[in-house]
Each structure stands twice: as C-alpha cells, then as structure tokens.
C-alpha cells in the first residue's frame, strides 16, 4: 500500500514536470501556431545559468536562471521567429530547429560538450516524512509549482486584458489584429511566459539529475511536443493532461517494468502516444476540427 502511494506520488510529480514543459510548448503553439524545437534550449540555457553562477546564493542563481529563460525566449522570437511568422508550420518548425542547433552548439563550444555537475541545495535533496511516506522535497516543490503555474495561468488567461488578447489571438489571429490586439506584444508575452516556464523546468531538472549538458533539452522538448499532440493540438488544458499522462506513464513504467526492459523505458513511453494518435488523430481532448483553442 505504501509502495503504491509512493509510486503514485512519484508519478504525479513527474507528470507535473511534464505538464509544465507541455504548457510552455502549447502556449507558443496556440498563440503563434508554431511547434518550437528551441523550447528544449530555453530549458537548457537557464540550467547553465545555475551552473555558471554556482558560487552565488541559490536564490540569486534561480532568479538569474528565470531571467535567462525569459531573455532567450524573447530574443529568439524577435530575431528568428518573427520573420517566419506567416510561413507554414513545417517552415516554422525547421526555423526553430535551426535556433535549437545554434544555441545547443554555442554552449558546447563555449562551455563543454560533456555534462557538468551542479550541486543541489541540501534542502532540495532531502525528503520529508509524511505519515509512513517519505516524499522527496523536490517532488513537493514540483507539485507546488505545477499547481501555482496552473492557477496563475488560469488567472492570466481568463481574468486579465492580456489574457483575453492571447485567447483572441489563439482563436483567430488576423481577426484579433483587426480588432486592435497588438500582435507583436501578445506573441512576445507568450514567449516570455514560455521562457519563464522553461527556466523553472530547467532548474527542476538540474536539481533532480545534478548535472547540465548541451543536449539536456532534447528529451524534454519531445515530451512537450508529444504531450501537446496527444492532449489535442493547441489546447493548454490538453497539454496539461498530455503532460500528466506521459509523466505518470514514464514514472510507473520505471517502477513496474521488469528489470531487463527498464533501459527501454523511453522507447516504450514514446511509442504509446503514437498508438494513441492512430486511434484518435485529434488527440485525447482535441476537437475533430483540430483548431487551436486555449
């Protein structure tokens, strides 16, 4: 019983992390219609900020990481993605692949291509005893952040003017523009939020794995993509569900797969969503028409 509860909490925590990744991908997709390969690098660069600023107080380093995430996302939008805003999905995807390649290899060239270790603060590597359960503090933090982000995002999208503009842009970009929504501002804000979310994810991943590497964003970005696709293209609620499902699946497979198959966990985790897509091409929550909705 305790084992089961423990693995459910693990599953929920990984699901929360994956949901945070997916929201970052989905936000940009709903507002701009772009699947952003560079989201993985928006995760990786803030993680490197932690590595570079390892000597500073942890709080300061985390703030710097968040700033890095926001800055790189906004900069990438301005320099690379704005010129291809009206191109088709494939062209935008390839453009973001270019940005990802540049950022990833710039880090390889300037820091090192190999992984570097980063120490987590003691508080985060300890566990808390709740009843008979011992829950890692990092999982508690991840779950708390997921709840806060979901609440905050809900408030932003449904209770503020900019949120209304973002939803309008997601519904019909041209119409929103005609009605006076400032497209550049809405898109820049979507990227800024997406960058901040990616930075949070980057910090959480570093705390968990204790290391940074230039390619550390690759698996998360695929996680985000798949979560968005199985959740139903371009719905933020769908991305959250997709992330939770994928994370829970991954965590539970890690616990319950026979030993011989554990190394193939990723292969199994990434194959199942494709099976879902064959049965439901529009995703779990998607509408048959497949239009973007927040």
């Amino acid at each position: 019983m305790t084992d089961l509860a423990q693995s459910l909490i693990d599953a929920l925590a990984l699901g929360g992390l994956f949901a945070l990744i997916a929201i970052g991908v989905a936000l940009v997709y709903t507002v701009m219609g772009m699947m952003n390969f560079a989201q993985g690098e928006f995760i990786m660069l803030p993680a490197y900020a932690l590595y570079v600023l390892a000597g500073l107080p942890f709080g300061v380093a985390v703030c710097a990481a968040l700033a890095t995430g926001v800055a790189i996302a906004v900069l990438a939008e301005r320099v690379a993605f704005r010129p291809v805003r009206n191109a088709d999905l494939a062209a935008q995807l390839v453009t973001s692949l270019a940005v990802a390649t540049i950022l990833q290899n710039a880090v390889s060239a300037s820091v090192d291509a190999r992984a570097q270790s980063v120490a987590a603060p003691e508080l985060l590597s300890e566990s808390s005893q709740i009843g008979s359960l011992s829950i890692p503090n990092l999982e508690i933090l991840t779950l708390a952040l997921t709840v806060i982000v979901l609440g905050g995002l809900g408030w932003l999208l449904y209770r503020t003017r900019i949120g209304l503009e973002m939803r309008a842009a997601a519904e019909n970009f041209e119409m929103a523009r005609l009605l006076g929504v400032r497209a550049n501002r809405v898109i820049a804000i979507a990227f800024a939020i997406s960058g901040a979310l990616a930075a949070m994810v980057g910090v959480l991943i570093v705390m968990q794995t204790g290391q940074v590497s230039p390619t550390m964003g690759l698996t998360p970005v695929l996680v985000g993509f798949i979560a968005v696709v199985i959740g139903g293209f371009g719905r933020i609620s769908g991305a959250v569900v997709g992330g939770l499902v994928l994370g829970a699946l991954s965590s539970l497979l890690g616990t319950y797969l026979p030993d011989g198959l554990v190394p193939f966990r990723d292969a199994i985790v990434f194959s199942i969503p494709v099976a879902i897509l064959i049965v439901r091409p529009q995703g779990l929550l998607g509408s048959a028409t497949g239009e973007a909705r927040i």
Partner: protein
Amino acid sequence: MNGRGLRSRASAATSLVVPLVLVALTAVVGASGTPSLEGTVTLILCNLIIVLGLQIFIGNSGVYSFGQLGFAATGAYVAALLTIPATFTLLQTAELPKLIADAELDPLLSTLIAAVASGLLAGVVGWPLMRTSTLAIPISTFAFLIVAYNVLANWDPITGGSSGLVSIPRTTDVASAGLWAGVAVVVALVFKWSASGYRLQASREDEVAARSIGIGVMRERLIAFTISGVLCGIGGALAVHQSGTLSPVTFYFAASVTTITMLVVGGTRSVLGAVVGTLAVATVNELLRNLEEGASVLGLISIGAAPGLAAVGLGLILLVTMIARPEGLVGGREAGEIGPIRRRLRPRAPSTSPTVAATDQAGPRPARGSAGSLRAEGVSLAFSGLHVLRGVDLALPPGEALGLIGPNGAGKTTLVNVLSGFQAPDSGSVFLDGVDVTSWSPARLARAGLGRTFQAALPFAGLTVMESVAVGAMGVGVGRRRAVAIAADVLERLGLGDQAQSPAGLQPPGSQRLLGIARALATGPHYLLLDEPAAGLNDEERRELVAILREVIRDFDCAILLIEHDMNVVMDLCSQVQVLDDGRTVAVGSPEEVQAHPAVVEAYLGASYVASAHA
C-alpha cells in the same frame, strides 16, 4: 513525349544529367585528392544518398520527417554486423544470432540486405506513423528517432550498446559511393515523375483537393516513406563501411539536423536542390570544422579549438535560409526547369490533333446498377447544436443537371461535403448508383466516379497546368501516359491548352476555376458537384462556362450538381432546381416551377432575381 506531355524530352534529360554530372565531378575531385580528402568526399556522397532519401519523402509530401536517420542507423547496423569478421563480432555483441555473427558478407551484398532491412522497417513503422495527422507526423517521426536511438544504445548484447561497434571493414571507396549516389539521383527523379510521385506532390500542394480526386494521401506517403527508408539505409550502410566505426549517436539528432539543413538549403522540392544543398553545406561544414580545430586569423587573432562551432555555423545557415530564401538555393526546380535553360529547351509547338478522342475516356463504363443516380436520403447534420441540414433528400439522375440554390447559410456546401464524403452526416444516407456510400472516404468516392470542385479554386500551385490536371486522372489510378492524354484532351476542351506548361498557381482567377473543373473531369466522373463555379467570372466567361458544362454533360456522360448564385447560369443549364433554406428543402422542380413557387420567392429569389432577370 512532345509538348503535350508532362515535360519535354530535353527538359527531362537535362534534369537527370545535371545532378548526375555534379555527383560525378564530386567523385572525381575526391578520387584525385589525398586519402583524407577522398575519405571526406566519400562520406559526403554517402550523406547525399541519405539527403536524397529525405527529399523523396519531405520534398514530395511537404511533410517533415525527423526520423529518417533512424533508417540510416538501421542500414548501418545491419551492414556492419553482417561484415565484421566473426571473431570481432562475438567480442562486441554477446547474443547476436550465430548466423549473423559468423557472416562476413561481401560489401555489396551487405548493402543490399541493409537496404531491404531498412525499407522493411520503414514500411512497418511508417504504417502507423503515416496514419497520424499532417501536423503530428514531424513529431511522431521525431519520437521514432529517439525510440530507435534508445533501442540501439541499450540493446547491448545485439548492438554493442552505447559504445558501438568497431573493426568494420572499410570497403566503401569514392567510386562505389559515387555510383550509389548516381543510382539514388535516378531513383529520386523516377519517383518524382511517377504517378505515385505526382499524387504525393498534389497532396503537398493541397491535401483536401488531392483527396477529392481520389488520392489516398496516407498510402502515397507510406510509399515515399518506405522508398526513403531504403535510400537512407543504403547511405548508412555505405557510410559505416567508410568510417569503420559505428555508435548510436552516428545517426542521431546532429546527423538529422545536418541532413535536413542540406536538403532545406538546396530546396526540398527538387532532386537538384538535394544535390546542390548537400555539396554546398558539406563544403561550408568542412571549412568550419577546420576552424573548429583552432586557427589564427592573419596571425593576430587566434581562435581556440571549439567543438560545436561547425554546428553553430550549420544552424546559422539553416536559419538564414529559412528567413531569406525558404524555397532554397535552386528554388525547387529541376535543372530542366530553370529559366534560361528552360527557354532554350521549350518544346516544339504542340500538334493540333487531340491525342485522345473524347470517346476514349467517355467510353463504356462499368455497368451501373439499375438505380443509377446519386441520392441523399434524410441527411441531417448539426455543428455543436447548430442544425445545418435537417433531413434533406436529393436525387441526381445520370446525365442531368440539377441546380442547388438557396440563401447564404442554407446548407448547400455542407450538403455537397456530405455527398462527397468530406463530412459524415449525423443521420441519413448517401447512395451512389444504388450502393450505400455514406461512410466512404472522399478518395474512394472519387475513384467510384464522384468528382467535385470547391468554392476556393485550391490549385496545385507548385505543379504546371498540365501536371495538375493529369494528376486528376492519376488520382483514380490511370497510368501516367494515359493520364497525360486525358489531361491534354480536357485542357483543349476547356480552352486551357495553351497554358499547359505554365505554373497552375500563376493562372488568373477565371482560369483557376476552370482548372478546378478540368482536374475533376480528368478523374472521369459520372457525377460532378460544382460549388459556385461562376463566382468571380465576368459575363463572357460565364457564358463560356455554361457552354463548357453543357458539353461536359453531353460528351462525358456526366451529371452535374451545381451550386450557384447566378440565376442566369442555373436557369440556362439546369433541367431541375432544388431550393434549400435553413437546412430544409423548400422546393424542387423545373426552373419555371421553382421560380413561381411562393415559398421560394419569399425565401430566396426576391428582389435580386427580379433585378437580374430584367438586366
């Protein structure tokens, strides 16, 4: 093939010869250089084979796959395991079946087996992957790449795990790589110019229009995906026999980015683009790699060794291409289609006699059931509570023209979508010659003799006029040669014969509408559904359209369902008119009867008809 064909013989020959010459020149440069240059050039030629594999799928389908390198990896592992001397194989792979472990095959044989293995894998993996939506394919193929990597890196007893394989015989030289690259060029062009290639390109230009002319988009994608897998497997097998070592990262993400950059920089849509892009990017890449190892500029600034710098350069090249020249260096054209060359190669004036008599295609059709007609019975449909169709009946007998009129929002287009399989009704049925076809796909209906056009012209913009009509016939399974003859005849009848070799996307709006009709006619329909074909035409064009449609009914033995707002067109052409209002049939009858029907006058005709009748 003369000027009526898809392209002139000279243009085709140029398109084939130029990339082959480029490949040959590259191989010669490699062969005449140092051994290290020869090795580099050999690997570039192997890369070219993979890039041509990417071109076959990405270029023709317009859908990006990030998973093709997984097939290159498959080919590489198969070829390596089949050729590593038995004693070394056992050291590296504990549980490899003895048959494979002992195998020390000839390099050619191992390459062929690798091609078959990667093609089989591509077919098996592609079957589910191609079933995902156009939006999801890039992501599901990316997932496949990661899955393939995960398996190769962790299946230690078979693949040697993350440390990979060594002691692979280095048998690929620049000549064999060049020969295979030449074969790959021919394969890519032959596929592009095959009926299957054209069907896939049509789906790239407009997926909806492609389905309306009988193209099974998934099937065509799977064919290209599989052929692409074969070429990628060959490229991987040859490359591993050049380098002598192999690890799971050899054909992983970085290699995917490199090959996609090569294709995109040259231009995805043409084989020439794949060749030019590969050579251009590889050259720059080699220069950057030299820089990576450390260099000094004018003895002043010294640049330290910085692995990753070449990849940054690659990323920048890709980024600049996407922003400044997304169609790539050669703009998606083959050598025989490029401006100055094309002018010199212009085909001689077309012969005046149609290649195929009209009777040939209007000839005997498969026997129709006694209930020969297109019928809808009690069709209802609601979109999230909004009732668009409420129990509509419709009957279109063979050889008749039925006008479908009604105010905006009456449900006319939705009804046509239901009849043509683009929209499943909530209730009710559609019968084609007595067969219940309610659940049939648009493509299947098209192959069964139901053609349609759309309110928007939906041209296959990247194809020529001739190609975009011929692909209509290819869509329903007609062979390429006969499809060209049918298209030439249809174009002649519609007065578009002169435009045959110009791009479909550059036609004026009136011609684009006719082109939509021509494309549907090329499928040889028994029933043709036209959604506002006269919209945007001037008076003279409208008169011509009516004359053409009369001829279609007579010569092609084809019934027409016509949605049209221009009452003159409807009254001129149609023997029967059905009026829809708010999803219900208000009246059916001859134009005169309908005209006099009080409900119709009230619901629809009103002042606008009176005005046009007096015009």
